[in-house]
């Protein structure tokens, strides 16, 4: 393998752990974080005292010190946060991999935990959030006074333009939801376990923000997810086959906004995801043809289509045909969101998707395709984002 980056292959994900995924956890976000972290450490076959690094999202309410103090993690030599909501997901693993590769830490746990359904719901939008004069807050001044204030609405603006330019339809978006829910239906950890949907049900579901139906939108979840990163060498001695981090990258595009990059010459692509993809392939020495499965961020179905295009799995504007041809199914060219995605399993800001990629590499997914060696994972779309390629050892 032609490896171009010192990061590629240096670190591996050795442990994964999560709480149950629910709509009302009945406990604090900190407790969810601690449970997930301890589960991931145990899954790796390590002790909390082995951990010397913690990474989470700036959006997470559970500071590293609280997690460390409560779980028996002692001294920390590395702690870091990644911004931009769900765009942080794979970025936390990149932080961990860089820390391990440079010796800043030896065992780094990445975590994300929230009561996003029973507590503060992102889906309700930004209309009535506290005011201040920061640039981030002031950015909402251009949208919320007009009633454009929720993630579904922000995505719908991109979706409408994408449909206009490429002739995609609501059914093309619906096919993404159907695949997610089909995969979730056989995943006991998924909220929608045992509840697949049909395209007709997708089409009949109520409007949220045209052109988005209810079933184009992911659920909201209470839960926690954590992942343990160690050096690839150390991972070989631990409990599970390592999921080697072949590549990890972040990307923020030109004229980047949060969910509303409507001012670029074209808004039907996701240039920040293209930027992530190019880095992933360059770091790993792999190309789209080497990728055996994909975990693509699916808070809303429409933005799965341009991800397939930006990552080189099909040509620009051709994702609708790629999907209609069945390539995202378990037996297809690119098995997709085998856990059920955020529409089907849980909305854990993309971190549950990273865990599924680890299971795919281990060969333990509930929808395990044959012969998976390399899995691509993406983080939030419409925001500064990140991605990973995980691969089997050797």
């Amino acid at each position, binding site marked *: 393998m032609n490896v171009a980056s010192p990061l590629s292959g240096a670190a591996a994900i050795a442990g994964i752990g999560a709480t149950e995924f629910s709509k009302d956890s009945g406990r604090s976000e900190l407790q969810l974080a601690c449970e997930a972290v301890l589960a991931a450490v145990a899954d790796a076959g390590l002790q909390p005292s082995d951990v010397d690094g913690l990474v989470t999202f700036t959006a997470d309410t559970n500071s590293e010190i609280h997690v460390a103090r409560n779980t028996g993690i002692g001294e920390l030599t590395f702690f870091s946060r990644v911004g931009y909501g769900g765009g942080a997901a794979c970025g936390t693993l990149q932080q961990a991999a860089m820390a391990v590769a440079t010796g800043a830490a030896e065992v780094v746990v990445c975590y994300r935990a929230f009561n996003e359904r029973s507590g503060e719901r992102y*889906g*309700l*939008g*930004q*209309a*009535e959030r506290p*005011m*201040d*004069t*920061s*640039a981030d*807050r*002031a*950015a*909402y*001044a*251009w*949208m*919320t*006074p*007009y*009633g*454009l*204030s*929720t993630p579904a*609405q922000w995505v*719908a*603006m*991109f979706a*409408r*333009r994408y449909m*206009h330019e490429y002739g995609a339809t609501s059914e093309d978006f619906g096919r993404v939801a159907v695949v997610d829910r089909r995969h979730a239906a056989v995943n006991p950890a998924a909220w929608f376990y045992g509840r697949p949907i049909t395209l007709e049900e997708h089409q009949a579901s*109520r*409007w*949220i*923000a*045209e052109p988005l139906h209810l079933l184009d939108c992911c659920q909201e979840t209470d839960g926690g997810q954590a992942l343990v990163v160690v050096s690839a060498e150390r991972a070989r001695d631990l409990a599970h086959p390592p999921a080697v981090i072949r590549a990890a990258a972040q990307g923020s595009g030109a*004229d980047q906004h949060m969910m*509303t990059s*409507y*001012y670029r010459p074209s*808004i039907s692509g996701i240039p920040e995801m293209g930027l992530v993809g190019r880095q992933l392939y360059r770091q790993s020495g792999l190309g789209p043809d080497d990728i055996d499965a994909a975990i693509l961020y699916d808070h809303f179905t429409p933005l799965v289509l341009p991800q397939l295009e930006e990552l080189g799995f099909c040509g620009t504007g051709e994702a609708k045909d790629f999907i209609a041809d069945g390539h995202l199914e378990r037996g297809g060219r690119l098995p997709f969101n085998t856990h059920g995605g955020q529409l089907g399993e849980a909305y854990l800001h993309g971190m549950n998707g990273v865990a599924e990629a680890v299971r795919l590499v281990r060969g333990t997914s509930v929808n395990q395709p044959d012969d998976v060696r390399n899995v691509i994972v993406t983080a939030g779309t419409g925001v500064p984002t990140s991605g990973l390629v995980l691969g089997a050892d050797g």
Partner: protein
Amino acid sequence: MSAAYEDRLRAFVGREIHPLRPGQDPVNVPMIRHWVEAMEDDNPIHLDEEAARATGRDGVVAPASMAQAWVMRGYAATTAAEGGGGPADELTDLLAEGGYTSVVATDSEFEFHRELVPGDHVAVREVVESISPEKATALGTGRFITSLRTYHDQDGEVVAVQRWRLLRFRPKAKPQEPEERSEADAAERPEERASRPQPAINRDNAFWFEAAREHRLLIQRCAACRTLRHPPGPCCPECGSFEWDTVRASGDAHVYSFVVNHHPRHPAFDYPLIVAVVELAEGTRLITNLVGVSPEEVEIDMPVVLDWVDADPELSLPVFRPVAQEGH
């Protein structure tokens, strides 16, 4: 409005309209008791000496928000004719002369310097801080009168400062058919309509919203390389200059993309609500609402023209309507 009238109004700015005037009674426990019962304020520091001392105070203290109550003149004075002919009455008369016969209090901001205790005797003086130009508000055309009230104790020490704002306005005639509510007339009747989400204003975007209040749609322009940009920011991404000015948009635009919102609903809006990204003739894009068109009629590339919504006294927003309906 004549220039002479403006000058007469302006003469009140900075003027003391209420000289220092003591309240009728000192701060006292019976009034505190009435107040905390009416307000359902069960904080024991207002009536229970022991509880108050347990917090480090010398004894009970009056609720801070009673400051204004101690200097109110009582029911008889409010029902009697104003009379007196003092400067406050002169200002009221002058505003009535301009047609601003209705009044509504819009803001009260307090700064408390110390807690008041029984036996304190509060006095207040009031100075006019500003009188706004005439504004088209949801209630009617009017002017905002902002004054500063300074509350003193018996020793002349300042105990609280209150910035007080009134809207003096010409009342509008009531619309007849409450059934037929367009977005425009809903916005004119705030008693039935929640405020739109307020924009967070900072040093980088204030100019735009200030111009919008005057129904001018501005586009920021780099003063060095003349590149237009929106949303505005402090620095030109093309040339790095921090110098900028603005150009006024022609108001011609076309629809670049749009959304029809159904859920969740915000009480400020009628649904389904159309939000669009329009591309202005000048080339920059803008998030806005489309009005005078139904969701099923909207198409990408459809030409639209600028219109305005006066959402509330402080917020006017550019919206767009189809060209065909211009002037309707």
